């Protein structure tokens, strides 16, 4: 585990010394601010918010932000190591492959959680002007964290498959866009197919969370997606070692 933290810490520092991370954080703040203001645009016309919740904002983060945020944050993590050859010293140190993968995953999660923490400002505003329900807020945040974790694990897998960051980003963007719009696709087919396609989609499992419901099956969906992606990333590193 010490190796995991060392690798995570190195990557976190990497984020804070890279201009890309600041630009990403800035765009994140601008977009979420815009989503928030739109969802409560009656803020100026009444004493109370029409609906004191972050439901729409969180939904929009999941659909419009995470599909590109996760690829951008993860693309260089393993691709760059392969391109620069630094993976040779990393993998010949006595670290386990899963420690490498988990460390990188944790680093991106920390960055994502930091960005997400900025949205707590909106919660404060809600509490100041309205009377938000605490339940849906908590479950909503749990949902977006799980959603983000799944998206990041997909990005990490893509980054392990290539030494080209751009390719990694495009691959994970493609997968995430697909998983985001599977729910829409499910409406185009009928019967069992519709259910199956719908259940595979990432958005399908998100609505309950923002409505204040923590359904085990939804938690299981995101957690298993994450686990499978991280597992595949470890395998991908192993085959790189044993090819």
């Amino acid at each position, binding site marked *: 585990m010490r190796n995991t933290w060392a690798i995570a810490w*190195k990557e976190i520092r990497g984020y804070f010394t890279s201009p890309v991370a600041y630009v990403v954080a800035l765009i994140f703040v601008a977009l979420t601010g815009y989503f928030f203001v739109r969802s409560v645009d009656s803020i100026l016309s009444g004493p109370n918010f029409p609906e004191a919740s972050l439901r729409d904002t969180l939904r929009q983060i999941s659909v419009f932000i995470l599909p590109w945020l996760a690829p951008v944050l993860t693309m260089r993590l393993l691709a760059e190591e392969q391109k620069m050859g630094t993976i040779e010293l990393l993998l010949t140190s006595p670290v386990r492959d899963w420690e490498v993968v988990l460390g990188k995953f944790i680093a991106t999660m920390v960055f994502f959680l930091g960005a997400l923490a900025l949205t707590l400002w909106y919660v404060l505003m809600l509490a100041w002007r309205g009377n938000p329900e605490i339940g849906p807020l908590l479950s909503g945040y749990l949902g977006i964290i799980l959603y983000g974790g799944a998206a990041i694990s997909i990005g990490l897998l893509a980054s392990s498959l290539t030494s080209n960051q751009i390719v990694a980003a495009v691959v994970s963007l493609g997968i995430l866009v697909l998983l985001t719009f599977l729910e829409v696709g499910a409406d185009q087919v009928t019967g069992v197919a519709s259910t199956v396609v719908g259940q595979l989609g990432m958005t399908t499992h998100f609505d309950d969370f923002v409505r204040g419901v923590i359904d085990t099956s939804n938690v299981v969906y995101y957690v298993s997606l994450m686990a499978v992606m991280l597992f595949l990333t470890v395998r991908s590193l192993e085959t790189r*070692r044993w090819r």
Partner: protein
Amino acid sequence: MAGMVEVKHLTKYYGNFLAIENVSFEVKKGEIVGFLGPNGAGKTTTMRIITGFLPPSSGTAAVAGYDLVDKSRQARAHIGYLPETVPLYTDMTVEGYLSFMGTIRGMNPKRIKARIADVIDSCRLGDYRKSDIGKLSKGFRQRVGIAQAVLHEPDVLILDEPTIGIDPIQVVETRALIKDLAGTHTVILSTHILPEVSMLCSRVLIINEGLIVAEDTPKELANRLQGVERLEVEIQGPRIEVMGVLEKIRGVLEVACSPNGSDQNVYKIQARRGLDLRPTVSRAVISNGWSLLNLQLVSMSLEEIFLKLTTSEEINV
């Protein structure tokens, strides 16, 4: 005790390309072994297998008794490695990088701190400890590479061309550093530089086109591979007669002389291995009433041996 590094029948294919074939050798504790071979011989490939970065297609490699496939992590814990390309994280400072490498090699913070001070000193990185690695020159990166390889005082050091790209003073210092490690550490280094091998190594492995073609101490290797002894003699006397007499001496295989018009010529004599013909030749010259102006044994330099080894088709060692 078994060898610190044991390599048995290693073969490695890249796709269909055979990079190394049936490579076997053993390195004992405290030995410094030189891995010598021309470009593309398979030195890096072999080292990547020993460090657990690449899997062998067949055969086994073990470090400190741990197999690099079955017990890879335990084996890797005993290795310090300087890859040929010296891959470093360019966005880290020298100190930050060394600290990271120390941590993932399982060193505790206190020891990391002490050892960083040591290696920064021994690799002359003092002025650069807070510099970004990305801004360092090639030579200084090489020093950082060496620093990280020795940081955790590994039992086995694998150095892929450690003195390439650094200035002559640093080359001398690096060699001294490697020499210092002998005895307690086991070192395998690859190089193209022959004097480096005779200077540092207790044993040389010569590899060519994926095969080990010779293995011995630098000195023995020179003797063994020489095959013939060569003498250069400068004699004042009638050339044809001199040639005739020299050729009749027992053990002489061949006499060559390019005439220069005068009767003072240099004769190149090849004799059977292990024979020192100097006394016989000098007596023969004197007893014929000629003058012996110069007489010397020509021993083949390692360079020549190396060339011979790697160009000749029929070497049986």
